[in-house]
């Protein structure tokens, strides 16, 4: 799509706001609609737009496959890790109250970390699946 100038320029302009909006949705999930899943999908949409307009190879230079594989597992490890840290600190599994001095602060921290884990995994899964499909098409 390199010859479609308007498309290319607009996609370049829209990319960073999309990623910024995704981060906003991620961290404001406590105060309004949002949270990990929505943020992960919107973040992936930014990269998919980049791949559609500039070609899969350029996107894979920005986000190499090993980073994606790391993130897929990393999000799940963060989630389960929070559970085990709670266990180690004396509470039950996924009992966030023991993570800080006061229970409310502990719950805040726990929810933040857990949603971060969910967001990272969802983002990397969506980009990986899209790249797997698109690379198949490019190879033939």
């Amino acid at each position: 799509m390199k010859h479609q100038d308007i498309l290319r320029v607009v996609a370049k302009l829209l990319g960073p706001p999309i990623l910024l909006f995704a981060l906003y949705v991620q961290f404001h999930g406590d105060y309004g609609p949002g949270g990990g899943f929505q943020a992960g999908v919107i973040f992936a949409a930014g990269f998919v737009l980049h791949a559609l307009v500039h070609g899969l190879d350029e996107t894979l230079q920005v986000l190499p496959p090993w980073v994606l594989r790391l993130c897929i597992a990393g999000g799940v490890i963060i989630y389960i890790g929070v559970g085990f840290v709670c266990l180690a600190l004396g509470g039950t599994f996924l009992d966030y109250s023991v993570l800080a001095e006061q229970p409310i602060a502990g719950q805040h921290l726990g929810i933040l970390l857990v949603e971060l884990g969910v967001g990272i995994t969802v983002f990397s899964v969506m980009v990986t699946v899209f790249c797997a499909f698109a690379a198949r098409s490019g190879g033939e």
Partner: protein
Amino acid sequence: MNLLGHFNYWIFILLMMIGFYVLISRGHLVKKIVGLNLFQTSVFILYISIGKIHDGTAPIIIEGDPIYSNPLPHVLILTAIVVGVATTALGLALVVRIKEAYGTVEEDEIHEQDEIHEQDEIHEQGAAL
């Protein structure tokens, strides 16, 4: 939605049945997956409508004392939507591999090719004996 009590549920069941019909009556595998998504989304609408309260508002705590709609169906359906997209992605990956293996994604032609292969294998075993 202040129509007669159950009319809403009937419309959602109609949408579900349209999706179900697409799933079982069409032979193209991608169209089956589209019908499955239609079915799933209509089930979500039915489920969310169970949690709605008249004159309620979204379950985000605000000033004052409004009636909040039930947050529990929202949580369950959030999970269900994500599981649905995971199923769709896996199903579509399988369709791509089926196309490469059989050369077609129509259910009838796939069955015909399988039967031909079975016949060939039976003939080969008969000739070897």
